[in-house]
C-alpha cells in the first residue's frame, strides 16, 4: 500500500511537468460530466417522476455511480487500461516486482484529470441530499457510505474482469465496455425502472442493483427493512471471484513479444 501511495505521488510529480495540459483536460471533464447531468434534468422537465422515482432520487443514484466509476478511473487507471499495460509489455515489469500484482497494476497509471469528475459526482450527491427529504438516522448514513464504497468496488471488480479477459486476447475489448461504460449508463438510473430481464442481469451477473437500487430503496424510505441497508455488502463478495479469475489469467499470460 505504501508503494501504491508513493507511486501516486510520483504520478502527480510527472503531471506537474505538463501543467497547462492538465488544466485543460481537467476542465474539459466538467463539460462531459454536465452533458450527462443535463440529460437527466431535461428528462425531468417533461416527467415528474420515472416509475415513482423523483428527480433528486435519480440524481443521488447518478451521483453514487459516477463517484464509483470516477474513483476507479482516477486511482486504478492501470486496471481500467490493462490492455495497454499488456500490449506495451509493462505488465512484465509488474511481475518482476515483489509486491501485490493487482495493487501495482492499479497504481501503474493514474488519471488525475478524472478527479474532476469525482468532485463533480460528490457535488451532485450533495445537491441531491439537500433536496431530498431524508429522515436521517445513523443507519441511513451507513447505508449511504456503503453505497458509495460498493460503487467503487463494483467497478473495480468489473475492471478486473475486463483485465482478465486481456490475458485471453488483447483485442475485442469493446465487448467488455458494454458492461463497464454501458452498465454505468444504465446504472445511473435506479435499476428497478428497467424491464425484469435487465434487473435480473444487473442483480446477479453484475451486481449494480446492490449498489444503487436496493440500498436506495431503504435510504429514501421506500422500504423499511434494514436488510436492504446492508445489501451493498454483497458486492464485496463479488470482488472475490473477480480477483481469483484475474490470478488464473496471469497463469495464461504469454507476454507481448520481445
Amino acid at each position, binding site marked *: 500500500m505504501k*508503494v501504491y501511495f508513493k507511486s501516486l505521488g510520483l504520478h502527480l510529480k*510527472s503531471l506537474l511537468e*505538463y501543467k497547462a495540459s492538465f488544466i485543460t483536460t481537467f476542465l474539459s471533464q466538467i463539460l462531459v460530466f454536465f452533458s450527462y447531468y443535463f440529460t437527466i434534468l431535461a428528462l425531468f422537465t417533461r416527467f415528474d417522476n420515472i416509475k415513482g422515482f423523483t428527480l433528486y432520487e435519480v440524481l443521488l443514484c447518478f451521483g453514487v455511480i459516477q463517484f464509483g466509476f470516477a474513483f476507479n478511473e482516477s486511482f486504478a487507471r492501470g486496471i481500467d487500461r490493462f490492455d495497454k499495460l499488456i500490449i506495451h509489455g509493462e505488465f512484465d515489469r509488474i*511481475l*518482476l516486482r*515483489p509486491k501485490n500484482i493487482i495493487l501495482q497494476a492499479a497504481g501503474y497509471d493514474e488519471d488525475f484529470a478524472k478527479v474532476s469528475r469525482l468532485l463533480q459526482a460528490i457535488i451532485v450527491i450533495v445537491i441531491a441530499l439537500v433536496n431530498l427529504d431524508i429522515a436521517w438516522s445513523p443507519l441511513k448514513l451507513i447505508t449511504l457510505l456503503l453505497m458509495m464504497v460498493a460503487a467503487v468496488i463494483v467497478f473495480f471488480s468489473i475492471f478486473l474482469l475486463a483485465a482478465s479477459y486481456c490475458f485471453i486476447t488483447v483485442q475485442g475489448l469493446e465487448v467488455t465496455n458494454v458492461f463497464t461504460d454501458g452498465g454505468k449508463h444504465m446504472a445511473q438510473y435506479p435499476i428497478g425502472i428497467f424491464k425484469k430481464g435487465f434487473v435480473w442481469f444487473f442483480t446477479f451477473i453484475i451486481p449494480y442493483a446492490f449498489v444503487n437500487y436496493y440500498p436506495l430503496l431503504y435510504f429514501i424510505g421506500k422500504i423499511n427493512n434494514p436488510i436492504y441497508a446492508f445489501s451493498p455488502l454483497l458486492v464485496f463478495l463479488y470482488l472475490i471471484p473477480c480477483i481469483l479469475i484475474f490470478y488464473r489469467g496471469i497463469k495464461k499470460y*504469454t*507476454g507481448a513479444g*520481445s
Partner: protein
Amino acid sequence: MSYIEVNHITKSFKVAKKKSGLKEAFKSFFKRDYKIVEAVKDISFSIEKGEIVGYIGPNGAGKSTTIKILSGILTPNSGKCKVGKMTPWLDRKEYVRKIGVVFGQRSQLWWDIPAEDTFDLLKDIYDIPEERYLKTKEELVEKLNLKDIINVPVRQLSLGQRMRCEIAASLLHEPDILFLDEPTIGLDAISKQLVRDFIKRINKEKKTTIILTTHDMSDIDALAKRIILIGKGQVLYDGSLQKLKNNYANKKYIKVNTKDAINIKMKGVLKKVKEKDGYAFIIDSKQLNISDFLNVISKQVQIEDVEIDNENLDNMIVNLYEDLKI
C-alpha cells in the same frame, strides 16, 4: 546440483492467423483461426553461481521467452526450473527479490521525472533498509558515473545515460542474478564499453551471476566465456566461446594490395575476389599455411600491402546459423 537448473522447459503460444486484406480482417473479426507456435521446446541447461553466460540466437529463436520464464514472468507449459531452492513462476514474490532484469528495449524508469525518484520508489518496492539503500546507491552512482544525470528528468537523457540508469535501477536491491536482455542495443562505442566494464566489475566484485542476451557479438566476446546458442526454440550449442571459435575461426581473410594480376590455384584457397587495388582471399588455415601462401604470391607479384584478419565473430555466427540451418 548447479545454481540454476533448467530441465525440459517448453512454452507454446496460441497465435491468431492473420490474412491480409480488409475482407479477411472482417472475417477474422467473427471467427479466428489459431495456430500453436512453440517458442521454446524442451530446453535444458544449468548455470553455476558467478558465471557470465551469453545467450544467443537469431530473432524469434526463443531467447526472450526463456529469459521471461527464468525471471518468473511466464509460466511454461511443461518442464522444471530451479534456482537455488525456488521455482521462478511459483515463488514469484520471494524469487524476484533475488534477481535484477534489464530490458534494453524497454525502460523501467519514470519518463517525466528524474531517475533518482524511481530509485526511491524501488527502495520501497524491494523494502531495502535506508542505510543499505544509500550505500548501494552511492556505489552505483560512482561506478556508473551517474552523479550529474540522476537529477535530470529521464526524457532528457541520452540513450547511453538512460541505459546506465536502467542498470543501476536493476541493481539497487543487490540481486544474485542479473538478466540483461540486449543491454547495449543502440549505444555508441563509449557507452558500450562503459556498460561492459561495469558488468565485468560487478560479476567480479559481487559474484553476481549474469545471463546476457545480445545480437552484438563484441558484447559476447568481451564478457562471456560460455555461450548457449538457441535456434527454433532448441539449444544448439552450449559450451565455451573459444571452442566455437576454434571450429570456425580457421578461415582467414587476407587482403593483398598489388597492381599485378595474381594467378593462383592452391588447396585451401576458398575464395578469391578481385578488388580495386588488389585481391581479397579467404583461406582455410588448416589446409594452407599462411606463410606458405604469402610465399607463393610474393614470388609471383610485387606486393604493396597485406592485411590478415581472423574472420570476425559476426561472420562466424552467420556461418554457424547457416550450418545449423536456423
